[in-house]
């Protein structure tokens, strides 16, 4: 189990207070831990924490800008998921249809 304190230790200069602030703003959404008074970070939450850390500490993204950045990122991931789903449906189509679509996509890319 990865508590808030444990996750903060992964970084050289991340105070638990700042990390707790990210959770409070729901930038990261760990699950409540068994006691119900702390947080339990899953791998995806830690990866997202690293991303937010990079944005805030390495790239100096202003705090006020973060919700926009994260919202756009989340939308991109959602879009990628939708396009993936579309690709899966395409894969089930007859060869002739897939070829026609591939040719069309190549034309559209240029």
């Amino acid at each position, binding site marked *: 189990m990865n*508590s808030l*304190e*444990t996750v903060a*230790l*992964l*970084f*050289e200069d991340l105070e638990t207070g700042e990390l707790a602030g990210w959770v409070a703003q729901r930038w990261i*959404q760990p699950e409540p831990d068994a006691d119900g008074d702390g947080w339990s970070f899953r*791998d*995806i939450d*830690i*990866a*997202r924490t*690293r*991303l937010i850390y990079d944005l805030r500490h390495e790239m100096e993204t202003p705090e006020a800008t973060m919700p926009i950045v994260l*919202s756009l990122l*989340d*939308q991109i*991931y*959602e*879009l*990628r*998921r*939708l396009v*993936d789903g*579309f690709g899966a449906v395409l894969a089930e189509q007859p060869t002739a249809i897939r070829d026609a679509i591939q040719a069309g996509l190549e034309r559209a890319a240029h």
Partner: protein
Amino acid sequence: MDDPYAALGVPKTASQAEIQSAYRTLAKRHHPDLNPGKPAAEARFKEISAANALLSNAEKRARFDRGEIDSAGAERPPERRFYRDFGDDAARTKYRPEGGFDASAFDDFFSRAFETRAAQAARGADLHFALTITFLEAANGASRVLTLPDGRKLKVEIAAGIADGQTLRLKGQGVPGLGQTPDGDALIAISIAAHPIFRREGDAAFFDLKVTLKEAVLGAKIDVATPKGNVTLTVPPNSTSGTRLRIKGRGIAGGDLFAVLELVLPPTPEPALAAFLAGWKPDAAFDPRATEAKP
């Protein structure tokens, strides 16, 4: 030993004192010399000692916590799982945008592909634009040229008297229709910028006209600017502050313009005026507050 914390049975947040205490307890229990009949004790003891050596050194402990060295103290490239490695999960679970995109997102993306024949037979789409015009353009009418995103220039005739928020429809100036279907329209939403002098109510326009005490009492002829050129306005004798003087047909699209008088006293004391008023007895005494409603 992969995890020195597990080896000592302490949480990652354990203090130095807790680590020391755990180490001592375990060292006592597993010391090989105290466990001559247990071959495994030696390995366990080495593990505990190595864990303690790592964790009792603040610098090494921090580097281990950050994943820069392994539990044997050897350098290892930081293993990082990037957020995008969870890409699919990310979108499918809690980090989905508010409400996600519903199934109609596909319709949005692929609207052209999924259009029915009926939809294809429809006319071209309307294009929407916004145009801000001046008060005087709205009052007198104007002709503006709008450059569209595709480079086309569109002449927009604005009729005198157009209202704020009104939308002009230019037939056939939108997206061309497919095949034989009609072209869409261009819809232009008009907003009217406020004017520093003139105010508007429907087709009537108002402006404030400052007058001196002498002009108000004796009357005057004053040159004023209107939306349709200058005029000479006659202020009748004995005009009070707030009086509206109508200037016919100089408002919006044939409506009237009203000058609202505002009485302005001299900025500096006028002893002669004060002396006159002190000795002045009005012909008809009146109380300007007599008709006011009492609180």
